[in-house]
């Protein structure tokens, strides 16, 4: 899957905004939103939050975890543990990128947050490669991947499944087989 499609899925996450306009409830196909009142926080999907922000119709309240102190704890935890630690949002990478690119004026210490999240990402990707390598060298058949996010899986996913599929095909010939089935009779 293309990363922009993972981002597309992340855009459904709800975030809190503080609008500067009034609007009655909006009945979307996917559910109702609002009502919107100036100065009163309201939850909307990220795709709408960013659009409203671009038109200067709201301020975005950053998610609770998007905070330097909390992210420092997460980064240290991630570096200390061998396994993947639970992450505060399944779309932490996408939310960080989208919010920092479009609403950095609403997020205190935006640059530090960007670095912390990227560090955490890098640590996790390094772990992911380590586990991919041991999965292949042990010739495993099943792995549990809790706490991995869609963007993480997606970055290495095709490469990894291609590798395993090739390995499976090569290994399929270790057992002598019965009749030969030619793909095309000549």
């Amino acid at each position, binding site marked *: *899957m293309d990363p922009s499609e993972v981002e597309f899925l992340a855009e459904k996450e709800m975030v809190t905004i503080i609008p500067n306009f009034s609007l009655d409830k*909006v*009945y979307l*196909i996917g*559910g109702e939103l609002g009502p919107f009142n100036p100065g009163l926080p309201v939850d909307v999907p990220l795709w709408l939050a960013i659009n409203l922000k671009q038109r200067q119709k709201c301020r975005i309240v950053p998610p609770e975890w998007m905070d330097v102190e909390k992210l420092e704890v997460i980064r240290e935890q991630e570096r200390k543990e061998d396994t993947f630690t639970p992450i505060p949002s399944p779309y932490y990478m996408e939310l960080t990128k989208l919010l920092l690119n479009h609403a950095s004026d609403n997020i205190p210490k935006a640059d530090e947050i960007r670095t912390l999240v990227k560090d955490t990402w890098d640590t996790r990707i390094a772990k992911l490669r380590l586990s991919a390598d041991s999965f292949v060298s042990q010739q495993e*058949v099943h792995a549990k*991947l809790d706490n991995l996010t869609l963007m993480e899986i997606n970055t290495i996913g095709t490469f*990894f*499944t291609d590798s395993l599929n090739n390995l499976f095909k090569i290994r399929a010939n270790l057992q002598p087989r019965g009749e030969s089935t030619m793909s095309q009779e000549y």
Partner: protein
Amino acid sequence: MADTMGGFSDSEDESQELMTPAQLIGKLEEAWLNEKFAPELLENKSEIVECVMEQLNHMEENLQRSKKGDLRATIHRMETERIRYVLSSYLRSRLQKIEKYFPHVLEKEKSRAEGEPSYLSPEEYAFAKEYYANTETFLKNVALKSMPPNLQTVDLGKSVPKPNLDSFVFLRVKERQENILVEPETDEQREYAVDFEEGSQHLIRYRTVAPLVASGAVQLI
């Protein structure tokens, strides 16, 4: 615009469970991701596609009456465009698979027992048949007609590779499953069983979980 919410419940098929439009969109997104990641063509979800189309058309009709620059209409338009993207991406990934596996897709359709639901929508079936015929004609015109008489046919069923059901897939569990048998890969390994906890994620061979994908118990990611 509250009236758009009612458009769905008066479906022709009474046995069908009632779904809210939000649940319907959720179902479409599930079908989209499953189709994107499954190695084989899955059963078509024409009911969902039709209902979503109905919702979109209804909404777009209403939007035509709205004034330019109306914030409410803009929000609705953004939403319909997002849903349209998922819908067309879903249909497109099915067409890509039909192009890739057309002889096998048609073979499966032919061997379908009476009463069993078709994997293809009527439009997809027409597309697959036409694609098959065009490929055959193309090969004939370009090369086969110049070959010696005994070499003028190509068995497309044998020359187009089948979907690889042993492909590895990533999945998230939606309904808890017990005792999934994992076949061994090497001689030193033994067959073993795993439990799929709700919300857990796994990497496993598609063949092992294909029935669970079909029933909706797991979601491919």
